[in-house]
């Protein structure tokens, strides 16, 4: 079975080349195995955080052609909900074990995200499928409202975890460098999510319908499938995953009003970089951007003392890749 097209091969070579260049560059400039390992680990960590926001954005955009500006707000709300559940006084009395409460907080965040996504799609977006441009404005308005609601509930002071739990506290050493266990934990969660979404898309009937809908939603409908119901489902899933991402990221990053928009722009960059409508593109681009940011950050602080370059890196990677590949890494001309 030969499904590999020439273009795909070139793309994979480009990706492998960039990754290798990043690794070599990082190894040479850090010059220390411990520093190098930490840089790479932190790159993977940031890549996975990005993926948690970008995955929903990518599938929703591919299927429904909606660039959902509210995705960042779902991420932020997930973080606050996670904090609230983890620190709720009543719950602490019932379940003293913080680890269990952490798991509960993830479940809670995911569910709230799913409910809000479902409402947003059913009530506000559905009447607007004939006017895609207005959906963009609408999601922007919704993001604004959600931010303000969070502000009025939790205020402007960021929330940091006072009630720690074992993975957040533990650390281990790599080549003599101490390293918190939470980063590899996030990486594992991210990889698990990549695999489960991939399985969903490739192995289930709903996955086949979603992939077909990304290509031609009208034809899917003409085959007797209620595409609008699929849209609702996918949008709900996308929002839930973003909120889960917020819940996962929050113990490490804290919950703040800025976190939504900060991740949204980078996530949009990642989705476009990977190629619109390509799930694997989004996954690969997330890791690529995460690694680039970590490597540049290390270099910029250590040698040229200009940490600003790390913040610009996602944008620069996007600009460079789009100049080489106008449809992103795995995108189709459309």
């Amino acid at each position, binding site marked *: 079975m030969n499904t590999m097209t020439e273009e795909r091969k070139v793309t994979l070579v480009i990706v492998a080349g960039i990754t290798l260049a990043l690794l070599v560059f990082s190894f040479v400039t850090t010059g220390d195995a411990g520093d190098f390992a930490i840089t790479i680990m932190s790159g993977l960590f940031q890549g996975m955080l990005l993926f948690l926001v970008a995955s929903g954005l990518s599938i929703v955009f591919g299927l429904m052609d909606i660039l959902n500006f509210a995705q960042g707000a779902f991420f932020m709300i997930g973080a606050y909900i996670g904090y609230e559940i983890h620190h709720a006084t009543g719950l602490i009395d019932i379940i003293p074990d913080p680890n269990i409460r952490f798991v509960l907080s993830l479940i809670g965040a995911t569910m709230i995200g799913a409910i809000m996504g479902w409402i947003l799609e059913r009530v506000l977006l559905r009447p607007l499928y004939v006017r895609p441009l207005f959906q963009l404005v609408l999601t922007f308005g919704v993001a604004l409202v959600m931010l303000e609601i969070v502000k009025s509930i939790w205020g402007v002071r960021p929330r940091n975890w006072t009630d720690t739990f074992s993975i957040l506290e533990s650390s281990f050493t790599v080549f003599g460098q101490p390293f918190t266990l939470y980063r590899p934990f996030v990486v594992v969660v991210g990889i698990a999510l990549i695999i489960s979404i991939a399985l969903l898309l490739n192995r289930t*009937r709903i996955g086949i319908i979603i992939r077909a809908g990304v290509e031609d939603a009208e034809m899917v409908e003409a085959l007797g499938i209620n595409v609008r119901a699929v849209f609702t489902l996918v949008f709900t899933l996308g929002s839930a995953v973003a909120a889960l991402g917020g819940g996962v990221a929050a113990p490490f990053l804290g919950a703040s009003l800025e976190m939504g928009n900060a991740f949204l722009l980078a996530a949009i960059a990642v989705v476009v970089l990977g190629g619109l409508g390509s799930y694997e593109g989004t996954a690969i681009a997330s890791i690529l951007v995460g690694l680039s940011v970590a490597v540049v950050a290390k270099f910029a602080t250590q040698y040229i003392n200009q940490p600003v370059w790390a913040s610009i890196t996602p944008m620069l990677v996007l600009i460079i890749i789009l100049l080489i590949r106008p449809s992103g890494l795995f995108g189709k001309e459309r």
Partner: protein
Amino acid sequence: MTETDNIMLKVEDIHTFIGQFHILEGVSVSVTQGSITVLLGRNGAGKTTTLRSIMGLNPPGQGQIIFDGQPIGGKRPFHIAQMGIGYVPEHRAVFKELSVRENLEIAERKRGDLDAKSDLIFELFPDLKRLYHLPGGNLSGGQQQMLSIARALVPDNKLLLIDEPSEGLAPVIIEQLMEAIRILSKQTTILLVEQNFTMASKLADHYVIIDDGHSPVHGAMRDLIGDKALIQRYLGVA
């Protein structure tokens, strides 16, 4: 048996707008059960829009469509499809990223549809067996057309709408498709759009001419074959 019992699909005086354009200005088509009916007419006359109106993809603003005794106007396309209409659109609309198998699987309306029909499908289009695990995008135009028809066969459809199956295909493949459509017509009703008059005249029992958003003439195919003036007037072929 009265005459209405025999009518599988009745399209009555439909008017369809796309944006501000009035594409269909009163089209009527009636399809008898078990027959092949062909829509003939020049490019842009409104044949494809007629099929899309039946499917609910471009819902008509006026007029009535009755399928199998029930009005289907105003229903969503998926609902219309579920009532038993298979749609083989213009340009095939094969899902290019999905394998042949997945292209067929997605058309299942209940589990096991594909297993039940795979013998029929492979008998009609033996090529598809060989290509079963390839992505739809890797198939040639003719193979994609076969897949698109096969996809409409997976569930038990009472009516197939097939839009220009011969478009852009080599004569050998057209022969093969004609044979397949002929076999299919023994078990289902077919409404066909076809520019290739030779093919249409060999296959169809009835014809309806679509001209400039209207349906001025219809009748039995064998009558049309002899009527050179009519053919010349609406189809521009002799």
